[in-house]
């Protein structure tokens, strides 16, 4: 993985690190450095954030310190019970660290897609809606919000991510573990169910 070193199996590496062995901890850093460094850069790119080389290096250090500080408190949280590899876990941990950094700091530029809360759904009429129309839109929004809560989590998630947050359907499919072909019918069914909840048939 890194600089041609022989890889130590996850289990052995973890045991060595948790026992406080310096050689294993050093090997751990070397083994996963490239993964962490690459993930930091990719998260930054995906968020349109211009992370400086210093920031990337700092975040790299932050991730490993997070794992090893307080006698490896964070590292101890890894169980691998469902066959989750150390690499997969570290990738998610690193992604979370970068997102937290972007939320706190000024590296993030304007997000690619603007997230809309339900209250911000675009007006359905043209300029200067009447008071009646405004009441109708407000009521509709409230109905949609209420209706969403009555859907199954998966249907809610599709509508949240794609319809409200503007995420591409392909990305939503990846998150939900659905094929690109099926996601369209999943989305269609979710909207149908929402419509049925909001406007029940007599």
């Amino acid at each position, binding site marked *: 993985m890194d600089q041609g070193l022989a890889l130590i199996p996850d289990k052995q590496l973890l045991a060595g690190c948790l026992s406080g062995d310096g050689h294993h901890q050093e090997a751990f850093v070397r083994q996963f450095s490239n993964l962490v*460094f690459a993930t930091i850069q990719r998260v930054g790119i995906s968020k349109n954030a211009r992370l400086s080389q210093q920031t990337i290096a700092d975040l790299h250090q932050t991730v490993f310190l997070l794992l090893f500080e307080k006698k490896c408190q964070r590292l101890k949280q890894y*169980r691998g019970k469902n066959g989750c590899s150390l690499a997969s*876990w570290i990738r998610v941990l690193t992604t979370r660290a970068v997102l937290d950094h972007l939320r706190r700091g000024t590296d993030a530029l304007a997000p690619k897609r603007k997230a809309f809360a339900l209250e911000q759904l675009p007006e359905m009429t043209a300029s200067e809606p009447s008071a009646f129309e405004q009441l109708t839109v407000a009521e509709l929004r409230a109905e949609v919000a209420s209706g969403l809560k009555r859907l199954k*989590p998966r249907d809610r998630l599709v509508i949240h991510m794609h319809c409200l947050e503007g995420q591409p359907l392909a990305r939503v499919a990846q*998150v939900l573990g659905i094929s690109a072909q099926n996601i369209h019918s999943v989305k269609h069914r979710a909207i149908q169910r929402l419509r049925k909840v909001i406007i029940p048939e007599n």
Partner: protein
Amino acid sequence: MKRICIDDETIADYLEGRVKPHTREQVERHLCDCAECRELVMTGALMLHDDASIPVDTVPTAVIQDTIEAVNAASGRRPVKMSRVMENARQLLDRGRSFFSELTPGLEPQPVALRGGVSVSGGENSYMLIRLADADIRMEIDETAPARFTLDIAPARDTFLETPLTVGLFDRGEEIASATLVDRPVQFEDLPGGRFKIRFSQAGRRLAEYLLEL
């Protein structure tokens, strides 16, 4: 009540399709209400599926080394390596030297005398006065032919050497010529251009040494 979000391993399991249906539903229910976890999951999916398509730099060795040192320090294992301190000091010294060169463009760094007198360097015809502890010595350099020099050394006016002075000329650590200076000039003839060391000794005791550039 503080919201408990989903741990990283469960997120990884969810993204990679290893969770059971019951857990999946719990995760998705949480994701509906938590924008931060939704963002993590969306970004995590991107990292998982489009990993190779976004070109990035490989981690520099210095970054790895710094991180290892930080982890060691945090674990209270050992201090920063002295080799690293020395390397940092060397870099600082190099920056100081280059800064000096920027401030004084065109100046050649002058040889530094070991003791007494002033450093000398010159070509063509140069004259300098060397002040030893108890005597002043005149030195004259004359370019008698292209890249060939003569070095004349004599006590300065009103200088009387009670003890003879030995003058030695060294080229790369090897003595190439020597003479004893009492009251008459000594001459080193037909010297090629280059860098030499000239040493003044008296009764076996080294008085001064200079770098000489011809």
